[in-house]
């Protein structure tokens, strides 16, 4: 699946996108964040405070329990600040 990162999440992870294949037991957004946090110090730092992390699955805002079944693009970013 394609992971895309925005704003300070992108800066802390150190890349704007990466293609990864999580293990089969990673089936929800929350499990994906746990698994990603183990990939590097940057990932761990970016994802340390889950209250400051928002996720979109295939361009739809998602919650921790959202399933990843069939998903192709997961976006991870801070709370939005437009307007």
């Amino acid at each position, binding site marked *: 699946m394609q992971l895309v990162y925005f704003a300070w999440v992108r800066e802390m992870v150190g890349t704007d996108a990466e293609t990864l294949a999580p293990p089969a037991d990673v089936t929800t957004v929350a499990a994906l964040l746990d698994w990603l946090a183990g990939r590097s110090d940057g990932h761990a730092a970016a994802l340390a405070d889950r209250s400051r992390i928002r996720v979109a699955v295939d*361009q739809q805002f998602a919650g921790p329990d959202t399933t990843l079944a069939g998903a192709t693009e997961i976006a991870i970013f801070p709370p939005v*600040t*437009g307007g």
Partner: protein
Amino acid sequence: MIAARLQAEPFDLAAEQAALLAGRTDLGAAVCFTGLVRADEGLVALTLEHYPAMTLAQMQAIADQAAARWPSVVGTAIHRHGRLTPGEAIVLVVTASPHRDHAFAAAMFLMDWLKTGAPFWKREEWADGTTRWVEAKATDDGAAARWNQA
């Protein structure tokens, strides 16, 4: 119909309102809101990052919700991205309806949700060379959430 647009270029408020009202004689009220880059002390620029694959669709979904809620309202919502300097306009909402209450309400709804429900992130650039990502405000979330209670 409320149309959402995303662009780097400046917009022309008068032209947008004129286009919205062209040929209509049933509209009794038109509301315009412009969001600007405020020159907080030492602020040099704001850069708006966004999620290209999602932003416009999410903006249009917000516009469609407003249109469903106030069917008599027509409107245009434009959000800019990229680097903007103090005094520049970031966002424009123009609405019109037969009576003012719906035009005002729809404009407020659109702004509350554009701030909290579309994937934009503001990075501040300061005179001393530092940059800082703007933190989301709980008051903005509250302003958007109150529309769900009505």
